[in-house]
């Protein structure tokens, strides 16, 4: 059975909520009309602004709604259904305790602008999480408000820009390796910087000497992902940082892969000035089909004064403080001996509180020992994948040493005409979500596999068997793969048509001037 659109099964007169209530709920058994003040007794204050036109929103009753979305959900793949080998995306188990905690009334049902005395517990959550983030990264402070990883990158780059401007230093270039996440150059460009590539050595790591040669007074800083998107740890990270600092620049570290090293090494010890942390990657807040994320940014002492508010910093006495707009200046004066030079505000309110509660719950569950084990198991699982598959799939950096949390393969050796995409779609028929494809760009037909630490050995073995099978088919030239998947809710979708003639909103089949008749107007494309 195909699931129709709500616009096809609902109508504007149907609703799944009730408003009219004629009587109070009272056991006494005597009907007691609640006698709400009728609308007619009060004059509308909408003036000429009252809506006269129809909206065209379909409604469903509750049974229909639950069924519609339950059916829809079953067309999705999800971690709850199987291994999700998406390199660089870190699809790991989402503990259900986290969901329960986030729904506690003291977290879910409080307003961001309530008087501070009524939200002490919420502020403590932010503070506790900030404490952990600072400790785990060895940094000085953390800006909590960024809404997602890319937002955090922007926050970090803006801190760097603000710090440079504060010393009157107008630098124009940010260096980014080719293997970086697309968000890195996009972010730096948004902040007004020119992007230049950092070359790689044959290991796939940053070429330290080339980098040093390029550094100079026009370079604001570097954006380095460590562990890199090739799944490798940048051995020279400290030397890179030292060189950049010496040249007057700052080091931004993309922390998307922090899950591989949490508890094993602290970015602060490697000279990093700013790093965002994707709470959904390292600390398991749910992906939710594309968000919401949360991207707090940890900062070195050199950048702390420029962070957007609210943020959290550790003072010399070792105590961590949550700093808000109202208290920022007095706080800075007391503890930092000067004003804050916050570059401004990145979002309304305090950030992704609902993600903070989940991440803190995850962190407290694991503790220092558990988080270290997370990194170790993630890396162990990835290396197990790498070594179990390198005989059937080309592993371009297998020689570069152990991988971190993800294993990278290329399409070398595939039969003519078969691509990484074909292998990925064939993997769907084996019951798996495909790995990350064609990223990083530096490897041809790249396949980036990140199993995460929440997969069992049995699950890995099953996945390896499936992947070996499709890899062998790809090398053997099995043409049937080109039309895969065969057993998914949909066969391959025509993305070209979608982009050429975009249909981005529902359009009634026969435009008419009925109650849902605003249709004519909404035709996509």
């Amino acid at each position, binding site marked *: 059975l195909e699931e129709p659109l709500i616009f096809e099964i609902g109508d504007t007169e149907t609703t799944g909520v009730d408003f009219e209530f004629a009587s109070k709920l009272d056991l006494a058994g005597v009907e007691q009309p609640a006698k709400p003040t009728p609308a007619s007794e009060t004059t509308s204050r909408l003036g000429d602004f009252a809506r006269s036109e129809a909206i065209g929103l379909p409604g469903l009753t*509750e049974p229909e709604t639950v069924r519609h979305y339950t059916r829809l959900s079953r067309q999705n793949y999800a971690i709850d259904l199987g291994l999700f080998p998406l390199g660089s995306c870190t699809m790991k188990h989402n503990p259900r305790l986290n969901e329960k905690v986030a729904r506690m009334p003291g977290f879910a049902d409080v307003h961001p602008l309530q008087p501070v005395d009524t939200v002490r517990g919420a502020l403590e959550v932010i503070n506790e999480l900030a404490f952990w983030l600072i400790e785990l990264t060895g940094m000085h402070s953390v800006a909590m408000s960024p809404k997602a990883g890319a937002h955090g990158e922007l926050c970090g780059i803006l801190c760097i820009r603000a710090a440079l401007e504060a010393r009157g230093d107008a630098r124009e270039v940010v260096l980014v390796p080719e293997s970086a996440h697309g968000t890195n150059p996009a972010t730096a460009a948004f902040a007004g910087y020119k992007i230049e590539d950092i070359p790689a050595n044959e290991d796939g790591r940053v070429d330290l000497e080339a980098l040093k040669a390029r550094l100079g007074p026009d370079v604001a800083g570097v954006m380095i992902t460590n562990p890199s998107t090739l799944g490798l740890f940048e051995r020279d990270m400290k030397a890179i940082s030292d060189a950049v600092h010496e040249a007057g620049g700052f080091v931004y570290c993309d922390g998307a892969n922090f899950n591989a090293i949490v*508890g094993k090494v602290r970015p602060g010890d490697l000279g990093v000035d700013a790093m965002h942390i994707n709470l959904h990657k390292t600390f398991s807040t749910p992906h*939710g089909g594309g*968000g919401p994320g949360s991207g707090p940014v940890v900062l070195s002492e050199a950048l702390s004064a420029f962070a957007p508010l609210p943020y959290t910093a550790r003072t010399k006495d070792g105590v961590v403080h949550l700093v808000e707009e109202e208290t920022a200046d007095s706080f800075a004066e007391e503890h930092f001996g000067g004003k804050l030079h916050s570059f401004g505000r990145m979002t*309304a309110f305090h950030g992704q509180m*609902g993600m903070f509660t989940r991440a803190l719950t995850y962190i407290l*569950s694991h*503790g220092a020992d*558990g988080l270290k084990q997370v990194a170790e198991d993630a890396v162990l699982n990835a290396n197990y994948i790498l070594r179990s598959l390198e005989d059937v799939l080309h592993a371009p950096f297998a020689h570069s040493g152990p991988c971190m949390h993800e294993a990278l393969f290329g399409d070398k050796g595939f039969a003519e005409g078969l691509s990484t995409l074909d292998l990925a779609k064939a993997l769907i028929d084996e019951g798996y979500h*495909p790995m990350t494809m064609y990223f990083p760009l530096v490897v041809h037909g790249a396949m980036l596999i990140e199993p995460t630490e929440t997969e069992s050995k049995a699950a890995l073995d099953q996945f390896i068997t499936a992947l070996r099978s499709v890899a062998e088919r790809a090398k053997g030239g099995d043409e049937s793969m080109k039309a895969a998947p065969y057993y998914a809710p949909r066969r391959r979708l025509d993305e070209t048509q979608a982009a050429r003639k975009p249909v981005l909103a529902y359009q009634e089949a026969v435009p008419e001037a009925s109650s849902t008749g605003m249709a004519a107007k909404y035709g996509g494309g």
Partner: protein
Amino acid sequence: MRYLPLSDGDRTEMLAKIGAKSIDDLFVDVPAEARLSGLIEGLPTHASEMAVEKHMRKLSKKNLAAADAPFFLGAGAYRHHVPASVDHIIQRGEFLTAYTPYQPEIAQGTLQMLFEFQSQVARLYGCAVANASMYDGSTACWEAVAMASRVARGKKKKVALSGALHPHYAEVVRTMAKFTDDEIAGAPPSLTPRPDDDGLIARIDDNTSCVVVQYPDILGRLPDLKRIADAAHEKGALLIAVNTEPVALGAIAAPGDLGADIVVGEGQAIGVGLQFGGPYLGLFAVRDEKHVRMMPGRLCGETVDAEGKRGFVLTLSTREQHIRREKATSNICTNSGLCALAFSVHMTLLGEKGLRSLAAENHRLACIAADRLSAVPGVTLLNEHFFNEFTLQVGRDARELVRDLADKGILAGVSLGRLYPDSEGLDDALLVAVTETTTEEDIEVFCDALKEALS
């Protein structure tokens, strides 16, 4: 560790397969001097589910939940009843633990939902196309300003912000624009019964890329969008309408229908809940589909599969960072997917009829509250028009008043002093929001306490 399936036996076996002697062999690339040998000092170790739950509950109980007090806060975040089925659906593992739907064959659930969501938002806003959501209202507002700049091909440098735009939104725009070349004009609101549309219109000139107007505005007033749109269009500028309370659009005309070119807003009021400020849901729509390729954010579109069956995919991704890198329309790569689902489910439960009833009930109670509160001696109602939020002038420092009433267990609203700490002349103003969750009893309790506090 309850979340880590590997046993010690597994680990040994796997290390053997890899050819490593110990787990540390796998971290050999981390310089020895930086590698942590033991645990980070000063941090607790792992804890049972029971212990963590107890700890978090303790923190939760230190907060005064809105359900436990007469509650009148708004200012961009509104408390509405969310049907239980909404939360049930967003907890389905297939939605909760799914990834961004880049593999459409096995993500039709998320994709069809997003297509429905986009359609709902577009209709609610009176627009042609909406995207698949953004971080929140404030960042959507900034993205709209940036988009207007792209539409003007960078040739117009001025952005005219209404003084009555939510101050956090204005700050975000100002913060971001510091790093681009846009010149942001704006000011705190003036306490007048109607918004100063004339003043705003007067600021529009040929160098203006866009005008940003909140509707209803931060004081709960209703600007004349149509007039402003005409004025903006006359100068070749785009009108960006910002809405922070989508329920209002069940009672007042849609911004798109009034001529706004880009409509953005905060979707939190439908389905998402308060959550101390996040995650929320940025809505983004354009009235005219010609602007689609300038839009930021993910878009879901309809297409067909190899067998001709209808299906949905993420599309027009050539605008996005993972393809365009530094040339992308935005650096964002996350939407607010699960919040969009909550919004869409709640909106489906409401339907047009339910949304209109909900809006009517909000407005009815707000009118009652406005009448009764402004009857308290010393209290004046500022607004000529409002939907479910209005401004009172209380004749004393409203921040203090709010704190005093909080001590009595009443969450009395948001003082303008809290929103504009640096502005003069706003100290005695209090924003009061009323929704269907407010009872007439709550209003009475508030009135009585207010009387006492002002006498």
